[in-house]
């Protein structure tokens, strides 16, 4: 079985896995709900107070640029569940029997989890857009930059959710626990990274490092361009995305090394 044939077979298998579970539809509905509720919340807030030029972006991304991305957490749950089924339900063994190439299975898992997370992000965006468009008075449109300016942070949002999915998948594989993996994804921006920041010394290099930490990079990835590149120590969306991708890549590499070396 050549690597290309094995990869195609593994992708087919991963897609079939997604399509044969009810939880797939549940996750899609949850992503739409998160998008819609987030948008409704920001629209309601925007009707009472001025949210500034980023109000529309926050509404469309369910607040992903102000901290924890709920759509991202959903993607992390999906990714972690995919990994958890490997050891809880023997999914890795069943897959290896028909596609006996671990590298192909890993690559296919990354492709499908990343793509599926992007679909969740897209669903959330569509639902949020529908709510914002239908909200009486359209309170957020006035101060917002043009859609062309929003395109970069919205693309960043999709990338952020995809990285959340991959992180959930890799962490669950590494830790062998889906709840622990999702817990870590949630706790990182809320607890762990703030603690880490407190531990950093007051120096210029520390400021640069601080901007590249995962939660900070996630915020920059979804921030409007002038904010992201304005002040010293702040990185642009591309650098933020790369920094985040490196962190997820390191975790994924650890998980891959474990999967390749260990018995299935």
């Amino acid at each position, binding site marked *: 079985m050549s690597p290309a044939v094995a990869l195609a077979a593994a992708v087919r298998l991963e897609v079939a*896995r997604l399509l*044969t579970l009810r939880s797939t539809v549940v996750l899609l509905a949850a992503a739409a709900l998160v998008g819609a509720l987030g948008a409704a919340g920001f629209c309601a807030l925007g009707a009472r107070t001025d949210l500034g030029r980023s109000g529309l972006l926050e509404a469309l991304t369910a607040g992903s640029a102000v901290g924890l991305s709920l759509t991202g957490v959903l993607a992390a749950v999906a990714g972690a569940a995919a990994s958890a089924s490997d050891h809880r339900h*023997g*999914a890795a*063994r*069943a897959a290896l029997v*028909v596609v*006996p190439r671990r590298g192909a299975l890993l690559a296919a898992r990354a492709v499908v989890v990343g793509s599926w997370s992007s679909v969740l992000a897209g669903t959330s965006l569509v639902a949020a857009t529908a709510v914002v468009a239908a909200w009486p008075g359209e309170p957020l449109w006035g101060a917002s930059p043009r859609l062309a300016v929003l395109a970069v942070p919205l693309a960043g949002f999709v990338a952020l959710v995809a990285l959340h999915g991959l992180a959930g998948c890799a962490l669950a594989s590494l830790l062998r626990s889906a709840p622990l993996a999702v817990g870590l994804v949630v706790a990182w921006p809320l607890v762990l990274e703030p603690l880490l920041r407190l531990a950093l010394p007051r120096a210029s290099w520390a400021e640069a490092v601080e901007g590249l930490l995962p939660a900070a990079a996630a915020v920059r990835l979804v921030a409007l361009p002038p904010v992201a590149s304005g002040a010293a120590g702040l990185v642009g969306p591309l650098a933020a995305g790369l920094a985040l991708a490196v962190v997820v890549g390191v975790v994924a590499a650890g998980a891959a090394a474990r999967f390749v070396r260990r*018995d299935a």
Partner: protein
Amino acid sequence: MIEALSLTKRHGSRLAVDDLTFTVPDGTATGLLGAAGSGKSTVLRLAAGLDRGEGRVLFDGAPLARCPRPAAAVGVALDAGSLHPGRTARGHLRVLAAGAGVPRRRVDEVLEQTGLTGVEHRRPGVFWRGAAQRLAVAGALLGRPRALLLDDPLPALDPDGRTWLGSLLREHADGGGSVLLTGSRAADLAPMVDALVVLRRGRLAAQGPASELVAGAAASVLVRASDAGRLTAAVLRWGGGVEPLPDGALVVTGLDIAAVGEVARAEGVAVHELSRREADLDAALAAPAEVALPASDLLGSSAVSA
């Protein structure tokens, strides 16, 4: 043809499988027999490429990873109970079919073949063990494989299910395929296979035609005597084998019941009990490791395709 060559697997410092070599020729079914923990499942997992170990398993001359279409080379049924609770029987097979590159209509065929058409839309939570086992077999059959590997399929099946599986495996072997299935009871396994490979703590204890191994293992005599040591020495002089049991009794192999009685009388040893032992491979496998396995005497004398 399935060829296992010098298979070795270590779990830390413990040898789970120790330099195991055997062959399952085309057109035959072979049973891998051993007590729990003897290494049977590990052998199958090594064969399927799931476990990392030493040695090789070849299917028609090639390792599984090198087969152009693995599902057409080998069908594997392991972990019958390991099913995603949210996926239906049909969904489970659809996933495997997608990976194996077989058309969806093949899913319907194997559902029919394994008698699962009535439960195809059910989820494992409402399955009975037999259905889960049939589903595992259905998954193994998807790619119309030349070789079948089945891990301990019998305990989950009722008598009808066993008859069905026996017919299925016989048909597969008669069609030129090869079958390797594991089990822990010789009485269950032997009627379904042509040959047995007996494992004891990961090592090859015996191999040969199933009928010969079972018959050979059954030819033992249980004797309780006033002087076990003297009787043991005498039996050994007469060419028999002796397996001492913890309660002081002796299991004599290689001599029939009359011969054992004669030996005891000639030695002047009082016999308190003398009976043909119905012990078979199962009893031998259940015995402690330090006690010699009667069937091990057969190793080499009746080995086939080693």
